[in-house]
């Protein structure tokens, strides 16, 4: 850390958008951009090929966008929304990851969460864990 106080004295909650949080927001931002762009293309051009996979991609994209914005805002309310979004993200990547390994025929096209995000270097699996750890780290003391 910088050693410079980034919050006024007496502040209850350490903001999620300070320090290491900025790097976390950057990673979330890239996934928000990548997942929503990819899902938009898939839904618009070939929805009928794999509706489940493409809708899940779109859901993942929306969750990344919400997490990016709420972590970047860093207010009390946005922390709660970020927490919900990141929990959904974790449940999503674990359940879709497991299902895509057990029932590959249900996912004829890859989603960002297929096989625990193997197509994205497993970052989709690590990201929600880091996100939750960061929310815990910056919680009200």
């Amino acid at each position, binding site marked *: 850390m910088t050693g410079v106080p980034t919050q006024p004295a007496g502040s209850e909650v350490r903001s999620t958008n300070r320090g290491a949080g*900025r790097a976390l927001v*950057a990673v979330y931002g*890239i996934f928000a951009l990548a997942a929503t762009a990819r899902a938009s293309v898939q839904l618009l051009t070939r929805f009928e090929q794999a509706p489940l996979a493409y809708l899940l991609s779109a859901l993942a994209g929306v969750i990344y966008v919400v997490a990016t914005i709420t972590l970047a805002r860093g207010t009390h309310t946005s922390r709660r929304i970020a927490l919900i979004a990141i929990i959904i993200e974790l449940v999503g990547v674990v359940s879709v990851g497991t299902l895509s390994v057990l029932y590959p025929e249900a996912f004829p096209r890859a989603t960002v969460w297929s096989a625990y995000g193997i197509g994205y270097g497993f970052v989709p699996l690590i990201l929600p864990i880091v996100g939750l750890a960061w929310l815990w780290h910056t919680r009200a003391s």
Partner: protein
Amino acid sequence: MIEALAYVVIALAGVAVIWGLVTAVANKPPGKAQLLFAAGVEIVTVVQSIIAAAKLVAGARPVELATTIAYLIGIVILIPIAWLWANVERSRFSGMVLAVAALGVLAMTLRLLVLWAPAS
């Protein structure tokens, strides 16, 4: 898209990633040279996207046209956003933010090379 230029982007972005990580580990905010270098990476990336757009207009058709267009737009907005975001709070993590954005540019350019290759 020009393949040689894509490799230049990949190499420059790779240097930006390492530079960002080094300043983060050294607990320093990004210096002026580093920010100028990031701007240089951005300029080369923009040139590449403009050339690719011109080739698309001229009739080049990659297999996944829509995805290619999305990526060509995506790679030019990452570094400017990271630049602004890194400058609001200047700390070691500003360098991390630049590194993350440059890594995104690197990955998307690699993907673009794959998408562009079987153009017919």
